Each structure stands twice: as C-alpha cells, then as structure tokens.
C-alpha cells in the first residue's frame, strides 16, 4: 500500500514533466540536427585565433599590463605606497637641501628618489597607485611579458619600471563632443579651436541628462588648474611638465581681449569676458596680487586657481590653491556655469546676478527637454548671455600696457619667479593696464621702477 501511495504521485509528476518536454520540442531529433548545424557553421567561420608568440594581439589602450614609472615626475610623496592595498610598493628616498631661491629665504628641501620597486608577485593590478599619484608619475603600460622563473625576481626596480615608460601610449584623444577640461566655452590652443566651442553644448546637454551640471562643473574646474590628473582623457602628457601649462593658460586669457575693438560683433564668449571685467572692477576689497597668492612650496609652479580666476575674470576665493583644487570654490563653479563671478562675501550686486541665472537655468530635477533641444540647436556657450551691447571698458588706460608688461616681467624675474610664472603675471598686469584697472600697490608698477 505504502509503496503504491508513494508511487502514484511520482508517476503523475513525471507525466507532467514528459508533457512539458514534449510541448517544448518540435520534433524528435530536431535538436540534434540543430546542434550539428551549429558546429558545422563554425567549421566555415573565419577563425579568430591569434597565434600568440608569432602574432601579437593588439591590446586595448586601457590594458592593465604593468605599471610604469616616470621617475622625473615622482616627488616621493608616498601616496601610492600608502594607498596600495597590498603594500607592494617600496620607496626609499633621501632629502637634499637646495640653496634658497632668493636672498634671505629659507633653504629649500627636496626629496630624491633612491628606490622605487613594485612587487608584481603581490600586486593585484587594482590601479589605485596610478589613480592616486598626484604628479602623474605612474602609468599603465600594455607590456605583459615580464614573467620570471623566481618569484623574488618579480620585484622590479625603478630602472625596469622606467624602461616600461617607453611602452606607455599617449593618452587617447578626447571623445567626440567631450568637454575640454577646465573650460566649457573656450578651448586652449592645444585643443582644436574649431571643435571646442561648439561641442561643449552637446556635452552639457547630455550632461544635464546624466546628472546635475554642478557636479560636472566641479569636476572640470580643478582640471583647468593643471595640478590634478585628468579624469577622462585630459592630455596627461602635457601636464607632467608642469611649467608651460599656466603660462599657456595665461596666454589664452588675453587673446580674446585683443579682439576687443571688434567687440560689437564678437561672439558671446567675448561678451561674457567683458561683462566680467567691470564686475572685477566694482568688486570691493583687496585686489589679490599674483605675488600674494604665490602659494606654498612647489605649488607656485602649477597654475593656481588665481590664475584661472583672473583669466576668467573672477576673483579668487580661497587663498590656498591646494584646497581649491580639491573642492572647487563657488567662484570657480560660477565661472563654469554663469560666466561671471560668483557671490563672494564682498562681491558686488552685478556679480550676484550671474550665478542666479545659472541656477534657474540648471534645474535640479533634471533636463528640460525643450531647453536641451534649444541648446543643441544653437551652439554656443552653454549659458545664455543676455544680448546686451558691450559696454566700453577700457576707459582710459593709465599706463602703457607694453611698458607695464616689461616692468612686471623683469621685476618678477629678478624676484626669482620662474620664467613662465613671471610671464603669466606680466601678461595679467598688461591686461589690467589695457583695461585701466588699477593694480594693487603691492605689485611693482612703472612708477615703482
């Protein structure tokens, strides 16, 4: 009896299963034929096997093959060694004292890298060290043939790591429509002038879809200062050689100014610039000088937000370049969004208007489809600038711009600034002279010299 009871449900169950199987299969043996057809198809397909030692695969440019070290860039900050989850980076260094930069100054200290080794037997290729290095000293290389017969030999020293630098690819070109880091409206000379001013609009529109534009601005702003590794596709190679970058940016700044006489038919970019200028004038409070904001230590050399601020016509907010690099100040953001200076405590009403406009323009809840469409239709700066007649700003230049330029340049050089910084400051002074902006008494002027 028990056996029968046990059996009864089992048979029905298997009947169900059988019915299911029957329902699923179209005919006896069809599945087998299908399987045969699949393998036969592969017989005639083009084979994609790469015969490795003879042929080499064209690896993706993002391949995590091995970590290469650009020794000149390493400042022995130890960040990579500290962040490495496996603690497989070994760094030794010693300090060297250099003569003070100018008379009466402190002697400067510098770290000299003695040993830099990565134990690839431990490394898990997480890439944190590459990400974290603030000075672009570590790179991913596509090299992968570095197996050794002994596990101890997998600890590669800096000579080997530097050799791998040769196989590091140049950074990939910016994506179509990508925003040039640092400035959505104006591309430095490095980027193709044609591509940059138009593309950002689309980038911005799609960005609005992806998240709040503020975030984007926050991301982009520090990049422009030239101190941080680029997030996506910034020209990495350019930055390590810190010197020229600020100079170039400062150079970029006056360029539109040169076109001032023709401002009436100038594109909005320049309008914005000119609007920004008077606000600078009106802004009360001590005018920051390049000298004051030279910044601590080696950071003088990297472009400080001040430089950017001046370039964009805004007033710098925080005196520490480092800080503002990490968290973009509202001013920088304001430039990004509104093109005008942002409300710093002492800023004039004129300045306050712009960011407000930016706020209304970029609602938090997401992109307005209409606006996106409009933005895509009319390429230009991402923020609409009221179509006003540009006001003449250069009322009466008090000094001769050329003379000011020469004076500041020689003065800065005499004070021990690097040529690039000196040039940048001289150019800033020249711009101010052209616009008739009174320079801070702290700065050497024609009268002083």
């Amino acid at each position, binding site marked *: 009896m028990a056996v029968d009871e046990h059996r009864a449900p089992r048979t029905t169950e298997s009947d169900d299963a059988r019915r299911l199987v029957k329902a699923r299969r179209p005919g006896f043996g069809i599945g087998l034929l299908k399987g045969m057809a699949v*393998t036969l198809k592969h017989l005639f397909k083009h*084979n994609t096997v790469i015969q490795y030692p003879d042929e080499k695969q064209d690896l993706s440019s993002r391949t995590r093959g091995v970590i290469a070290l650009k020794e000149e860039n390493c400042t022995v900050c130890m960040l990579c060694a500290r962040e490495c989850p496996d603690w497989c980076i070994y760094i030794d260094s010693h300090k060297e004292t250099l003569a003070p930069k100018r008379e009466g100054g402190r002697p400067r200290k510098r770290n000299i890298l003695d040993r830099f080794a990565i134990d690839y037997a431990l490394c898990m290729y997480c890439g944190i060290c590459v990400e974290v290095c603030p000075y672009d000293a570590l790179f991913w290389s596509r090299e992968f043939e570095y197996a050794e017969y002994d596990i101890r030999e997998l600890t590669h020293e800096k000579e080997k790591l530097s050799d791998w630098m040769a196989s590091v690819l140049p950074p990939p070109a910016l994506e179509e429509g990508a925003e040039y880091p640092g400035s959505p409206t104006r591309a430095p000379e490095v980027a193709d002038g044609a591509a940059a001013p138009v593309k950002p609009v689309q980038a911005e529109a799609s960005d609005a879809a992806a998240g709040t534009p503020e975030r984007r601005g926050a991301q982009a702003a520090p990049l422009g200062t030239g101190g941080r590794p680029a997030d996506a596709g910034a020209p990495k190679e350019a930055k390590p050689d810190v010197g020229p970058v600020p100079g170039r940016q400062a150079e970029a700044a006056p360029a539109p100014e040169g076109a001032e006489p023709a401002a009436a038919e100038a594109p909005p970019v320049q309008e914005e610039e000119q609007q920004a200028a008077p606000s600078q004038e009106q802004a009360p409070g001590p005018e920051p000088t390049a000298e004051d904001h030279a910044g601590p230590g080696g950071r003088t050399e990297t472009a400080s937000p001040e430089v950017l601020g001046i370039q964009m016509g805004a007033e710098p907010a925080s005196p520490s370049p480092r800080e503002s690099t990490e968290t973009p100040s509202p001013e920088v953001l304001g430039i990004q969004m509104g093109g005008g200076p942002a409300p710093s405590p002492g800023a004039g009403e004129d300045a306050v208007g712009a960011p407000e406009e930016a706020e209304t323009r970029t609602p938090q809840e997401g992109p307005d489809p209409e606006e996106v469409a409009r933005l895509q239709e009319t390429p230009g700066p991402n923020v609409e600038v009221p179509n006003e007649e540009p006001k003449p700003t250069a009322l009466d230049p008090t000094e001769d711009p050329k003379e000011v330029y020469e004076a500041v340049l020689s003065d800065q050089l005499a004070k021990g600034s690097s040529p690039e910084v000196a040039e940048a400051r001289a150019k800033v002074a020249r711009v101010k002279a052209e616009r008739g902006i009174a320079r801070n008494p702290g700065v050497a002027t024609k009268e002083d010299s």
Partner: protein
Amino acid sequence: MFDITLATWQILVIKIIVILTVVPVGALVGGYAEHKVMAHLQHRLGPMYPGGFHGWATTLADGIKFLYKEDIIPAAADRKVFSLAPAAIMVPIIMTYLVIPIDRALIVEDLDVGIFYLLAVGSLSTIGLLMAGWSSANKYALIGALRSAAQLIAYELPIVLAAVVVAMLAGSLSLIDIVETQNWPFAIWPPGIGFIAFLLFTVGAVAEMTRVPFDMPVAESEIITGPFTEYSGMRYIFAHMFAEMGHMVAFGGIGATLFLGGYQPIVPIPFLDFIPGVIWFSAKTMFMIFLFLWIRPTFPRVREDQLQKFAWKFLIPVGLALVLVTGAWVLYV
C-alpha cells in the same frame, strides 16, 4: 594485368605488409583529422607547429613521444593478461580491414560471408577491453571495462540489424556483391529503409568506438579513460589511441561499403566511372569519418542508464521493425 606469378605465401606476405602499413597510417591520419576537424568545429586552429605546415606531424610526434615513455605494469596487475590485452583489442580491429573492398580487385580476401565475418570479428574487441580492465587491479579500470562490455553488447545489436537489412536488400553476405548491387547507395534507395539503417549503423558505430556522446566507458573526467587507466607508453597507444583511430577508419570503410556504395560512384551516371573506385571509396570513408568527428564536439556525454535505455528501448526495436519492413520490401517490390 600483372604477369608476375607469386606463390601463395608470397601473396600472403604482401597482403600482411599492406594491411600492417595501412592500419597505422590510417590511424595517424585519422588522429590528425580528429585534432584539426574538432578544432575547427570549435572555432579553434588545433595543432599548428609540429612538422611546420599546420602541424601535420602532430600524431607522429605523439606516437614517438609515447615510444619514449616508461611501460609501467602495476604490481598487483595480472602481468600476462595485462600485457596481452592491447593485442587482444588491436588484432580484431586490424582483422576487419581484411574484407573491406577498396576497389573491385583491391580486397585482401573476398569472403562469401563478409558481413558475418565483420560482425563476428568486431565483437571480439570486447574481450580485450575486459582483459585490460580486469587485469589492471584498479577499480576505475574495472568499472570502465564493465561499462565497455555492456555498451558494446548493447550497440552491437543495432549494427547487426542494420547489416541484416543490407544483406537482405543485396541478397548476399559478400561485401563485393553488396557493393555491386548498389546502383544507388542503400542510404538513398530504397527510400527510408536504407537511410534509417544507415542512421542505426552510425549511432551504433559511434557507440562501439566509445566515442562522444557514448563515451561513458572511457569518461576521462571520472573513471580516467576506463579500462586503460593503468596503461602507459606504447601499450596505451595500442590499447586506446590506435584502437580508437583504427576502429574509426574501419567503421568508416564499413559504412561506406554497406550504405554509400563503396567503390561505386555515388549516383549511377556513366561518365562518373572515369573516377577510380579507390577515390570513391576514400571519399566516402572520409565522409563517414567526418561524420564521426562532427558528432564528437557537438553533443554532451549521455548518462550510463540513458545510454543503455537508448539502445535497448529504442534502437533495437526500430532495427527489428526495419528488418520486417525490409522483408516486405524485398518480397513485394
């Protein structure tokens, strides 16, 4: 054609030499074909280096490698039986080559009972497998041997039934007669009957060779090549590799002879006669071998019980019914 008169023993010696070269060469070529065809079916390249051109010498290199290997006989093994088993497997396979007609005149021995001889000799290998498994003193070898024996017996029957169908259609047991009656290959005519017999034969042959999907007895992932677990070196080559490849070529030849018209052109069109029978036969044999190779990477291994059920509950009844139908066809058509 030849004016040379040879004594019977001389002819015998020549025949033996020919067979003893044909079998290993066939096995080597079959092995290479297996490597390459399987690789390409699986979208790979297969061996590419040995010999230079597409790895043509792979199986040769394999064989030479095995020559160098130590011939290990387990301490607990039955030494005599253990060392004789590969021969007991290999000899029946070589013997099947004797009656396969390569061309009208190219046959070692045209027996009147050709089919009967083939089937009888074919089932002898089972004894070799049992010898190997039993004498190895290894439980995996024993399990493998028993599975092999059970499987060979089960799948011998569909082959026998398919052969019976062919013999009935041809009205003869001689393989030469069978080929000669096939104006149209039996796989095509009589419609249905011949084709089903052909399928029965193919499935049975794959199982006889213990090839995927019926490779339960050798199941290398669980019972480590079944009866040959303890074999190494040259003995392993003879017991397994050569046996499998030799078997495959032999079954290819048998299938070509019984169902595809052997050395006859595939369709009875007179102008196709200029192609020599050897080429027809080789092409058909290669097709059969390709079929076996094609099946291997396509299907997964079936379970032991499914394998037995498939033979006893499906193939054999179908075969029996087919014999009845064939009888009716021969009588009334």
